[in-house]
C-alpha cells in the first residue's frame, strides 16, 4: 500500500509487483496431462502433417463449437488469412472490417489479397453492427469480416441478415469471443466460418496456433488443402497453398488446455468479479461487464476512463507499467490511422472509433493474476485518483 506519491515506482518507489502482471491469459495446463498427450507423438513418431493430436484437437473443438468441421492452423494470423481468402467472392476485392480491431488485421487482409474497407463500431458494444457495416458495403465487397469486440459479441444477427441481403459471405473473427454463446448456440457456428487463435495470450494456449470452424464441407476441404501446400493426396497439388500446419507439440498443449476449460473459465469469471468489486469504489473507471444471461469466457478486463478520471490515459499507463502492471490501451491506434502503407478504403463515418480508441484500458488478467493481486491493483488505482493532482504536477515537473 502506497502512502505518498514518492512510493509510486514511476517516481522511484518499490513496484507494487516484483514480476509482471500481463493482460495475456497465459494459461498453464497440467504438465502431466501435456506429457501424456506428448507421448502420443513418440508412439506415432509423428511431429506434424495432420498428426494424431491435431486430428484429436480438431474433433474436440468441432464438438465444443457444434460445427461439422474444425481446421487447425499454425497461428490465428494464418487461420484468418486463409479463411478470408477462401471465403471471399472471387471476382471482388474488398473486405469490410472494423477499424477498431486487432492491429494486424489490415495486413492479414493484404496477405489474403483483399483491400480492407473500414467501418465504424457501436459505441456501447464496441462491436460492428449491420448498420455500421452497411455503410462500407458496395459493389466491390468480397467479404464481411464480423469481428467480435473484446468483451461481448458484435451484432451477429444483423450482420447475417446484411450478408444474406447482399449475397456476400460473412466470416467471423471470434478470437476474443471464444467459448461465448449467442442465443444458446456456441460461437463458432455463425456465418460461413469463424476464426480462433490459440496464441498463449488467448483463452486457450497452444504456444502458437489457431483454427477455423465451419459447417461448409467444401470450404473445410479447401482450407485443409491450402494449409498443406495445396496437396490433395500424394504428389498432387491442386491449388496454391503454403505451410500453415499446426504441429503436434502445439496440439498437445491445446488438448491439455481444453481439458481444463470449464474450470479455467470459472477462474476467469472469479477474477473478473473481483475486478468488478474492486472498481465499484471507483466510478471514474467503468468496467465493461459481460452478459449476465449468456456464457462468456471472462478473459478480458476492459475499463473506460470517464471524464472524471483525473489522469491522462498515457500517464495512467506509464504509472501502471512502472508498477509491473502491463495494462494496454484498447486498439490504439485504430487501423485507418495505422495502415498507411497498405491499400485501404476509408470513406465512412468512423467517429465512434475515433472516440473509443482514446478511452479504454485493458487491465491485467489471466493466469498470472490472483484475486489478491486485483485487490492490490484496485487500491493502487484509487490511490492514483486520490493523488492525481500531485501526480500530474510531478510528471509535468519531471518532463520539463
Amino acid at each position, binding site marked *: 500500500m502506497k502512502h505518498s506519491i514518492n512510493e509510486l515506482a514511476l517516481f522511484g518507489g518499490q513496484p507494487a509487483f516484483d514480476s509482471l502482471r500481463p493482460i495475456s491469459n497465459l494459461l498453464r495446463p497440467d*504438465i502431466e496431462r501435456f506429457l501424456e498427450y506428448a507421448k502420443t507423438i513418440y508412439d506415432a*513418431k509423428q511431429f506434424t502433417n495432420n498428426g494424431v493430436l491435431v486430428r484429436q484437437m480438431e474433433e474436440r473443438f468441432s464438438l465444443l463449437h457444434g460445427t461439422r468441421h474444425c481446421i487447425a492452423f*499454425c497461428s490465428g494470423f494464418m487461420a484468418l488469412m486463409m479463411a478470408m481468402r477462401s471465403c471471399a467472392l472471387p471476382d471482388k476485392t474488398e473486405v469490410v472490417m472494423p477499424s477498431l480491431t486487432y492491429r494486424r488485421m489490415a*495486413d492479414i487482409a493484404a496477405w489474403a489479397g483483399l483491400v480492407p474497407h473500414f467501418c465504424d463500431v457501436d459505441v456501447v458494444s464496441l462491436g460492428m453492427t449491420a448498420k455500421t457495416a452497411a455503410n462500407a458495403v458496395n459493389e466491390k465487397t468480397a467479404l464481411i469480416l464480423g469481428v467480435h469486440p473484446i468483451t461481448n459479441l458484435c451484432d451477429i444477427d444483423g450482420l447475417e441478415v446484411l450478408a444474406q441481403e447482399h449475397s456476400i459471405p460473412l466470416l467471423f473473427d471470434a478470437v476474443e469471443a471464444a467459448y461465448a454463446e449467442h442465443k444458446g448456440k456456441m460461437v463458432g457456428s455463425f456465418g460461413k466460418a469463424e476464426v480462433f487463435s490459440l496464441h*498463449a495470450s488467448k483463452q486457450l494456449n497452444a504456444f502458437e496456433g489457431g483454427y477455423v470452424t465451419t459447417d461448409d464441407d467444401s470450404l473445410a476441404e479447401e482450407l485443409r488443402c491450402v494449409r498443406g501446400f495445396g496437396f490433395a493426396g500424394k504428389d498432387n497439388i491442386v491449388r496454391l497453398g*503454403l505451410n500453415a500446419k499446426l504441429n503436434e*507439440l*502445439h496440439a498437445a498443449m491445446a488438448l491439455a488446455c481444453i481439458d481444463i476449460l470449464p474450470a479455467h473459465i470459472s477462474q476467469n469469471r472469479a477474477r473478473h468479479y473481483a475486478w468488478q468489486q474492486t472498481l465499484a469504489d471507483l466510478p471514474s473507471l467503468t468496467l465493461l461487464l459481460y452478459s449476465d444471461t449468456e456464457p462468456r469466457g471472462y478473459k478480458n478486463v476492459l475499463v473506460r476512463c470517464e471524464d472524471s478520471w483525473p489522469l491522462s490515459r498515457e500517464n495512467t499507463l506509464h504509472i501502471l507499467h512502472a508498477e509491473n502492471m502491463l495494462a494496454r490501451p484498447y486498439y490504439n491506434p485504430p487501423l485507418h490511422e495505422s495502415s498507411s502503407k497498405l491499400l485501404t478504403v476509408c470513406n465512412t463515418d468512423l467517429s465512434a472509433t475515433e472516440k473509443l480508441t482514446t478511452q479504454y484500458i485493458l487491465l491485467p488478467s489471466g493466469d498470472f493474476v490472483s484475486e489478491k493481486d486485483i485487490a492490490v491493483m484496485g487500491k493502487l488505482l484509487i490511490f492514483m485518483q486520490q493523488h492525481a493532482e500531485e501526480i500530474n504536477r510531478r510528471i509535468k515537473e519531471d518532463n520539463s
Partner: protein
Amino acid sequence: MKDDGIECLAFLGGKAQFSTPLHVGQMNLPKWEHFENAFRDVFARRYYTNHGPLAQELEDRLAEFFGVRHVVTMTNGTIALMLAAKALNLTGKVIVPAFTFAATVQSLTWAGVEPLFCDVDPQTHVLTPELVAPLLDDPDVSAILPVHLWGNLCNAEALEELAQRKGISVYYDAAHAFGCTRKGEKAGCHGALEVFSFHATNVFNTAEGGCVCTNDDDIAERLRNLRSSYGRRISVDIPINGNGRFSEAQAAMGLLSFDDYPAIITANKARFELYTELLGNIPGIRILQPVSGEKHNYQYVVLEIDSQVFGLTRDQLIRLLEAENVLARRYFAPGMHRCMPYKGSYPNVVDALPTTDMLCECVMQLSSGQAVSLQDVRVTCELINFIYDNAESLRLRLP
C-alpha cells in the same frame, strides 16, 4: 528373404517384408527423458512464445553453428521464405528451379512476385550459372532463388557474380542443407540470406520450424520486424507485417536437436554408406553422392532409376517397395511448372525444362532417419536386388 520366386513379393500377394512402414524423412526423436525435462522447464518458466529465452538461446547457438551474424527463427520454412522475399523488397520475377518442393515457388506467389522457372543440372539437380544466365535477359527479374537440393550446395560464387553484374539479389532455399558445406563453408553464409527448414523430416527438427540466416544487419532487422513486434531490436520500415513467430516449444525441440546432432549425422552417414555399398553395383541405379571432402547431413538417400537398364520404371519399383512397407517417395513429381496454379499461368514454360521433366520421371528417395536400422537398410537393399534380378518377369505382372 524372397527366395521362393516373385510370388512372395507383397505386391503379388506375399507377406510384406516390414510389419510397420519405413518412411522417407528423418523424424529424429530426442530421448524422452530429455524431452520431458525440457518441457517441465518451459512450464515452470511460464514463457510460451513471443521470442522467449529458449528461442533467443537457439538463435545464438545456430548463428555460431552456421558462422553467420544473424539467425532469425520462424514458424516454418515456407513462412520464412515468404517473409524473406518481403525483407528483400522483391518485385517482378524471381528465377527459381521447378525441380524443388512446392514451398520454394509458392512463397514467391504469396509475396507477390512471379516465378521464372529455370532448369537444373542433371548431375547435381541444382541451378547452375549456365542455366540461369539466359534468363537474366528478362528485365523484370529482381532475384535468383536457387535451392541446395538434397544438401548439394549450388555454385554460390558464380551465381552471385552473375547476379551482381545485373544488380539483383541471390537468396537460397537451404531447407535440405543444414550442416552441409561447399569449399568448407557451411550453407547459411551465402548470398543475401539463406532459408532453412526445421520440419521433422529434416535433420534439425523443431516439429515445424525454420530460420533465415544473413550477414546483413539491415536485412536481419527487416526480417525480425516482419516476423512480429516481439524480438525486433529496432522498428524499421517494412512493406507489410507478418507473423512468423517461433514458440518456446519449437525452441526447446531445437536445442535438443543440437545435442543429438553429431550422433544423428554419424547414423545417417552409416545408413547412406550401406545403401551405397549394397545398391551401388545394380545397373540402372545411381545414388547421388555428396562432393568428396565436404560436410554433408546425409538426410536423403536419392536414387535415379534408368528404367531401360534397370528393367522397371521408377514408379514400378516404388509400387513394389510400398507393398513391402518401404514407403519410398518420388520427390518431386510432377515439377512445379506442371502443378497448379503455375501450369495454367505459364503454359510457355511447360515444355522448356527437359532435365526437370527427366528427373521427375526417374528420381526417388529411400527410407532414412532414426527409425530405419542398418538391418532395415540391408533388407531393403536385398529387396531391390531381388527386384532387379527378376525385373523381366515382374514387368509382365505390373501395370
